[in-house]
């Protein structure tokens, strides 16, 4: 097993080196066969990394404890799905997953571009395989997932209980799909710089990759937040943990890129800035991987101490120095086709949006790195608390929220004052009118940030609803179709635009969920003997006695809590503690009653023999809005990135129609 896995990784490494050499050499005229060979080399690298991944999965499923990775992260008592996901429970296994996804994406890139981007593709392949060489080198020579033990134990240590959760089964792969996917735009950007082919071809080729990777990364972040919420027992979902930040930063910069790329497509502007964003995004993806693996930070999400840090650091520096140097040498070729004509234009709004997103990413970076920098400079680690992040992020987030409504209503190039008045009167009036019911019916006035988010949210919804309404009205009038038909036709004809609007609406839902749950949460600790009651934020909790259950893998001790509201029983919750048979490790069993208005969240901190249960009670308003926003973001993103049907191509006079090799 070990030999098979190690050999597969070594062969993948050799294959990746071959691709880099052959693809770069193939750039000379008359060497198409070299390029074809390099393309096949990419498929071979994918085949070998697939073989390595399958070998590791086989070892996990068959309890091959002679492999250290299996002995330390799996056990005979684990169910098969958890054995499979134990692959990314370990440092080396997660790097194998990285390399496998990268090689798979590289194969897809090569396949979908086999008849296009011929000048770019050799360099694209070289860059992607260059990245693969780093990961395969680390897997082959630094931390092998196929390392064997001198003596195989009879039983493995099992998977960390915190990872035995359905969200943890999908959170890491989602993040890696996002991280790795963002290496494709980087590879195309570098190829455009190397080949000096700096028209919009590379932008067109990476737009869909960026959207899909952005969706994966965003979904991964939200699934990780849900895991934290349902597993860790502190009542929250986001703690500005360094590893959470590590995934959030590239997502922010990728969001900036998705907006600024439209300015380059439409107006030929921000070419250098887009290159900078692509380089930053990919570097931050590597930085996130470095943070999780270097052991320089302590986090529930991070792997333990390791020797990988210096390798990652050198690689990140090499990527940054190489790509920035290349960019500097090409600056004269990246002059904008136009200049900013007015600050009241869509491109100006996108620029502001970019500055805010990158500014927020920098603030998060600074907060993440400050403890490390302070320790290096003064020998004392100064921790940056949530207060710093919330102080910085809140005003930026509110400004970004407002821009999500303003941007779509402002025309490219310039908007006249009369135009702005006409467009914004209704949304502003609706937002102003919403203040009264919000103040009367909610607690919003007690929290300025939540109030601002709510009013800005109403404004954005009014702006976007107006856009949908006006578009439908035009199509309805033009085509004589029904109103639903007008809506469907309008969205189908411009998926990118209306998919983007759905994402903007999702951002409103997300922000309202964040504002509600951050600004109006109630927390109380109660001690209940059997038959005792306690009331927290309108919920009455009744201790109805302890319950116990067990299977071969774990035993669960919980307390049955009857939940009443307004005198009616609204549910029963079982907060408890799970004890794993194998090593007596414990994990909390958080009990949540979730609803659109609020979550009741119970965490059992102690259950005494006499039945006294000490419970932390959290009442978190609007948390489920956050998860719903995640679904909307994925739906809107998919709509925006979904391939369009090839439009009717114009047939040039006197020449045959296009060669039929449609763009992938």
């Amino acid at each position, binding site marked *: 097993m070990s030999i098979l896995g190690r050999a597969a990784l070594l062969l993948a490494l050799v294959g990746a080196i071959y691709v880099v050499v052959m693809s770069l050499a193939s750039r000379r005229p008359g060497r*198409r066969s070299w390029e074809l060979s390099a393309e096949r080399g990419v498929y071979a690298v994918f085949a070998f990394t697939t073989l390595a991944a399958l070998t590791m999965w086989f070892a996990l499923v068959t309890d091959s404890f002679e492999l250290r990775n299996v002995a330390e992260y799996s056990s005979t008592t684990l169910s098969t799905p958890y054995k499979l996901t134990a692959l990314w429970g370990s440092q080396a296994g997660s790097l194998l997953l990285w390399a496998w996804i990268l090689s798979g994406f590289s194969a897809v890139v090569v396949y979908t571009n086999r008849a296009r981007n011929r000048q770019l593709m050799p360099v694209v392949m070289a860059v992607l395989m260059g990245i693969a060489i780093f990961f395969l080198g680390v897997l082959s020579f630094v931390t092998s997932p196929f390392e064997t033990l001198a003596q195989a134990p009879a039983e493995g240590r099992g998977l960390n209980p915190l990872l035995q959760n359905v969200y943890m089964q999908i959170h890491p792969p989602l993040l890696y799909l996002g991280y790795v996917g963002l290496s494709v735009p980087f590879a195309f950007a570098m190829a455009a710089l190397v080949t000096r082919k700096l028209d919009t071809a590379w932008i067109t080729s990476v737009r869909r990759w960026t959207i899909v990777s952005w969706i994966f990364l965003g979904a991964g972040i939200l699934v990780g937040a849900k895991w934290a919420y349902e597993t860790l027992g502190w009542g929250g979902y986001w703690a500005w943990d360094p590893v959470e930040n590590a995934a959030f930063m590239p997502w922010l910069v990728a969001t900036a890129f998705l907006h600024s790329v439209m300015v380059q497509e439409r107006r030929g502007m921000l070419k250098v800035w887009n290159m900078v964003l692509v380089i930053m995004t990919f570097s931050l993806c590597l930085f996130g991987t470095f943070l999780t693996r270097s052991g320089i930070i302590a986090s529930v999400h991070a792997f333990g101490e390791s020797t990988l840090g210096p390798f990652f650091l050198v690689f990140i520096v090499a990527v940054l120095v190489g790509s920035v140097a290349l960019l500097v040498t090409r600056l004269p070729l990246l002059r904008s086709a136009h200049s900013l004509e007015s600050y009241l234009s869509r491109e100006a709004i996108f620029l502001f949006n970019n500055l805010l997103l990158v500014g927020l990413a920098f603030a998060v970076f600074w907060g993440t790195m400050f403890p490390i920098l302070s320790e290096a400079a003064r020998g004392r680690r100064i921790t940056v608390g949530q207060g710093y992040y919330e102080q910085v992020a809140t005003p930026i987030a509110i400004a970004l929220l407002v821009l999500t409504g303003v941007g779509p209503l402002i025309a490219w190039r310039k908007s006249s004052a009369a135009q702005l008045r006409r467009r914004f009167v209704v949304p502003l009036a609706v937002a102003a009118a919403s203040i009264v019911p919000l103040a009367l019916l909610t607690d919003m006035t007690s929290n300025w940030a939540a109030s601002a988010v709510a009013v800005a949210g109403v404004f954005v919804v009014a702006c976007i609803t107006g856009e949908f309404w006006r578009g439908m009205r035009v199509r309805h009038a033009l085509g004589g179709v029904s109103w639903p038909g007008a809506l469907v036709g309008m969205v189908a004809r411009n998926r990118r635009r209306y998919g983007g609007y759905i994402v903007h609406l999702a951002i409103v839902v997300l922000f309202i969920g964040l504002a509600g749950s951050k600004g109006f949460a109630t927390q109380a600790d109660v001690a209940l003997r059997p038959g005792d009651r306690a009331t927290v934020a309108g919920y009455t909790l009744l201790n109805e006695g302890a319950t116990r259950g067990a299977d071969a893998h774990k035993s669960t001790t919980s307390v049955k809590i009857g939940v009443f509201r307004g005198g009616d029983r609204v549910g029963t919750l079982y907060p408890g503690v799970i004890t794993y048979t194998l090593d007596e490790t414990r994990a909390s069993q958080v009990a949540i009653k979730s609803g659109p208005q609020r979550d009741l969240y119970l965490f059992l901190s102690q259950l005494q023999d006499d039945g006294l249960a000490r419970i932390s009670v959290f009442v978190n308003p609007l948390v489920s809005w956050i998860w719903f926003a995640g679904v909307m973001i994925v739906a809107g993103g998919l709509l925006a990135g979904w391939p369009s049907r090839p439009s009717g191509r114009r047939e040039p006079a006197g020449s045959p129609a296009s060669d039929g090799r449609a*763009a992938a």
Partner: protein
Amino acid sequence: MLAGILIVAAVALAVVAAVGWPLVTHRADDPVEDPAADARRAVDEDLQRALEAIREIDMDHRAGNLSDEDFAELDAAERARAVELMRRADELAAP
């Protein structure tokens, strides 16, 4: 162990053959790539974007997002760009 070695050896041989095949079968009369193909595709994609922009500007105007003056200016600029791209596409398509 032997089975593992045999599997790897078999896969490696097959892969080497597949990867090396284009080098072995390369002939001097292999069709020369059309260097203008990428340029044509890029112009075509730019043209599609310009046509999309014209449709979008028209939609914005009809929806009331653009005044008549702004529409006239933006539409004329985008149409001029589309015409220029069509001209370039025709040039590139010419034998």
